[in-house]
């Protein structure tokens, strides 16, 4: 089938274009010198839990303690720091990095709808982010309790271990979906995405202290609802200000997060139609 015939069938054309852009973008998103700090974010917990797995004996704690420690690492490190900043680096640079490298015009000079380009870039970023962070979560989960040997294997194969691992990986992937769409939008709207990123970070970290209604306008609220160990209690001097809200059930949290992310992505894609190539400014 020739190009002219493909062009008369929009869905087939868009599918081909998405595949072609993904091929180009994945190379950049997965392997980039610019992303060295994202590799550190993903490898950090793997190395620490890996070192923990080499410790002989129980060290005076139980498998349950390791599970609780991992739940803390997941909620405090992965959700609030690693995935948040990793997605900031990956998604806000999908367009921005090409402006800095002066190569964005090659896409803009192709007969591709800007919306298709934006969605393709988002998918490439999402694939990379999930490989990094869901991979890091899975390895960290396995390493933190690996020193329990057969007990841990039993916990995985016949206990709740595999189920928990699946939920952690899914929550990490959904975090990439949610934060990815937000930072894709800030990357499209702002030349310097750091200021909007700081605003998003403050909003996300204020979540425990927000009234129940406002809590629902954040990514972290839904993600915490999905964590297998439940929400970690808020510590510190401001703990008394925290409001307790009933966790959102998974059947509502997952589609809710996907819908909100889809809307944010659609807005970013529509805004990308207005992007101009002005490298010198």
């Amino acid at each position, binding site marked *: *089938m*020739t*190009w002219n015939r*493909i*062009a008369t069938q929009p869905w087939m*054309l*868009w599918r*081909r*274009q998405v*595949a*072609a*852009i993904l*091929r*180009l973008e994945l*190379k*950049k998103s997965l392997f980039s010198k610019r992303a060295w700090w994202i590799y550190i974010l993903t490898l950090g917990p793997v190395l620490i839990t890996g070192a923990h797995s080499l410790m002989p004996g129980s060290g005076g704690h139980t498998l349950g303690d390791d599970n609780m420690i991992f739940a803390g690492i997941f909620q405090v490190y992965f959700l609030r720091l690693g995935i948040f900043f990793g997605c900031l680096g990956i998604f806000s640079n999908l367009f921005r990095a090409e402006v800095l*490298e*002066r*190569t964005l*015009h*090659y*896409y*803009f*000079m*192709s*007969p*591709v*709808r*800007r919306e*298709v380009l934006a969605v393709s870039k988002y998918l490439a970023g999402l694939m990379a982010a999930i490989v990094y962070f869901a991979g890091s979560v899975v390895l960290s989960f396995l390493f933190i309790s690996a020193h329990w040997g057969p007990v841990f294997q039993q916990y995985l194969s016949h206990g709740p271990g595999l189920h928990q691992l699946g939920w952690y990986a899914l929550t990490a992937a959904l975090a990439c979906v949610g934060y990815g769409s937000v930072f894709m939008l800030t990357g499209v709207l702002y030349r310097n995405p750091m200021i909007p990123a700081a605003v998003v970070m403050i909003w996300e970290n204020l979540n425990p202290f927000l009234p129940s209604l406002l809590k629902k306008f954040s990514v972290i609220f839904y993600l915490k609802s999905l964590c297998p160990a439940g929400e970690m209690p808020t510590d510190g001097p401001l703990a008394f200000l925290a409001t307790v809200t009933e966790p959102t059930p998974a059947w509502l949290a997952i589609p809710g997060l996907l819908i909100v992310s889809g809307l944010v992505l659609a807005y970013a894609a529509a805004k990308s*139609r*207005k992007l*101009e*190539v*002005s*490298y010198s*400014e």
Partner: protein
Amino acid sequence: MSEPRIVFDNVSRFYGEVLGVNRVNLSIPAGVTSLVGPNGSGKTTLMNLMTGLIRPTRGAIKVLGIPPERPEELFRKTGYCTQFDAFPKGLTGYQFIYSFLLVHGMIASEAARLTEEALQRVSMTEAANRPVAAYSKGMRQRIKLAQAIAHRPTVLVLDEPLNGLDPMARAETIALFRQWGEEGRHVIVSSHILHEVDRISDQVILLSHGYVVAEGQIQGVRSEVKDQPMQILVRCDKPGLLASRLFEQDHVVEAKVSEDGRGLLVRTRDADSLYLLLNRIVLDNGLEVEAVAPADDDVNSVYQYLIGTEGGAT
């Protein structure tokens, strides 16, 4: 049905408070059209506007009836070779062209065939499998050109396409532009090199400080410059006699015999009258005329008259 054209309708573009181009009205027909003007005159801005890389602050543009805000339609028919000397990292010349043809939505075999064809057209087949990062400036220029023409566009926009090319490649590229123009495509070229513009162009657009100073076929533009007398070179056996007869006319401003004594350079305010008079003088005095040709209806002269030497055009 009217001939498809590239139309600028009262287009202005400002960069903040800085003027890019102002109140541009153009209707560009098929053939080779050169944008000429000093640095900062608005050539690249016009090209970026017609390809939708930037948006007009005011006015509207249509390229063969398609507004640049619809790249998915525009770039099926348009190729743009920009001045930006940057490429996606890690690609060979072949992969660079092939990958972006796939982005068009082409199937692999069609993309491969068009990639090879484009590489052949710019004589880059042998270097195709080397990384673009290892190319010389001239090779990078040619691979950009190949990428712009690979999908066989009917509108080609080329920003300083001869930059960095060696004389042989320049000659080949100019021949290519002429061929495309003769095939009925729209070829829009910006260049500083005026004698090359002369060889390429069917029409020119002269720009200065963001304004279109003149447009059209170069002879037509020249005849509109009334305040500068036309220069006509007459090669004949008796230039002195011819000069004395011509000086009797009011419209003849200057007549200068060439160093070899076989030519006369005449400056006149009325070229048509001069040509008529010349016929009579030749018949009356039995002059042997080898050639009569305008000496300043080229881009260089028109550029000097309208824009001057500012901006370093060569």
